[in-house]
């Protein structure tokens, strides 16, 4: 029901959507009165901006890294460097004032397959930042097992499931749970991991609410 309500809200918003073309290459961006333009973000550090390397990890023999910087638009960006097939850099940028407007965890859930096996995810990674009030972060799985998520002093985290874990349905992430200094739970957010590539036609599948206690 949550998603149905949100779609109806979006329908109203779409009435004021403006479509525009940016650049000769045909890159297309659009904005509305109530939302930021997507796809037109500047994923590069602003001139003279400091790039902070928050976490570098060797997983399955491959190097992963998450960096932070400010882009030319003044947005705070996190960039995850993903190795291997379907590798590249995923960059999430947002106005710092809106990071925690919906809760103390601001996150992205990502997964990729390999060219040789579309039936499973080859890697799953959850990344983002938490509000200063969060002192502990956990990932819950489909079996309600809990895994600590390492958060650095800037509140940035990158949690990677190795290929072996990504192939195991029981190990796939289901939720993110945050606690404050008193041990109180301050967030319990869903991790809407997409169906495996073999079941990829389930576009826009709604997230499964975490039910673990």
């Amino acid at each position: 029901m949550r998603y149905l309500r949100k779609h109806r809200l979006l329908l109203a918003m779409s009435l004021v959507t403006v479509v525009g073309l940016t650049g000769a290459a045909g890159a297309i961006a659009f904005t509305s009165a109530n939302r930021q333009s997507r796809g037109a973000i500047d994923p590069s550090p602003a001139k003279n901006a400091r790039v902070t390397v928050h976490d570098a990890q060797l997983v399955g023999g491959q190097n992963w890294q998450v960096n932070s910087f400010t882009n030319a638009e003044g947005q705070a960006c996190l960039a995850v460097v993903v190795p291997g097939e379907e590798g590249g850099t995923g960059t999430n940028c947002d106005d710092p004032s809106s990071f925690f407007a919906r809760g103390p965890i601001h996150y992205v859930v990502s997964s990729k397959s390999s060219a040789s096996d579309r039936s499973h995810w080859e890697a799953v990674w959850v990344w983002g930042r938490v509000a200063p009030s969060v002192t502990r972060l956990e990932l819950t799985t489909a079996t309600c097992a809990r895994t600590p998520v390492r958060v650095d002093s800037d509140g940035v985290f990158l949690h990677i499931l190795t290929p072996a874990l990504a192939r195991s349905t029981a190990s796939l992430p289901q939720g993110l749970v945050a606690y404050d200094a008193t041990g109180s739970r301050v967030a319990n957010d869903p991790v809407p991991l997409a169906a495996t590539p073999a079941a990829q036609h389930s576009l826009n599948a709604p997230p499964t609410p975490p039910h673990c206690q």
Partner: protein
Amino acid sequence: MSLKIAGAVATAAVASVVALSAPHAARATDCLVDEKGSSQYGSMSYGTEVYLLRASIHTSLWDANSDYFARRYDSAFNLTLNNYVLSGSYVYGTSGNVVRQTAMTPGDSAGLSYWFEDESTMC
């Protein structure tokens, strides 16, 4: 959230022929065709049945309001990269596979409210 619309298959098949025979310089808006056979780009009504007709996909964003999915597909429309973004703006850059021919066949449908295609000039 999927919504099937009677007659859409035939409509989409016709539209597909049109899209494939369009000159290379055709507008990018021809990539996206709704169930009425008309091209749209950017936004669509809730419940619109959508077909991507030979669109070259780098990253497509399937919106679920302020949080959304950014996805990439291979030539057989296998999902190869998926990103659920709680908020903010997301872009994925890579040195390879920046242009892919993706065909969503008639019958592949979803109630999509918002669509974005990046780096596409080939529709």
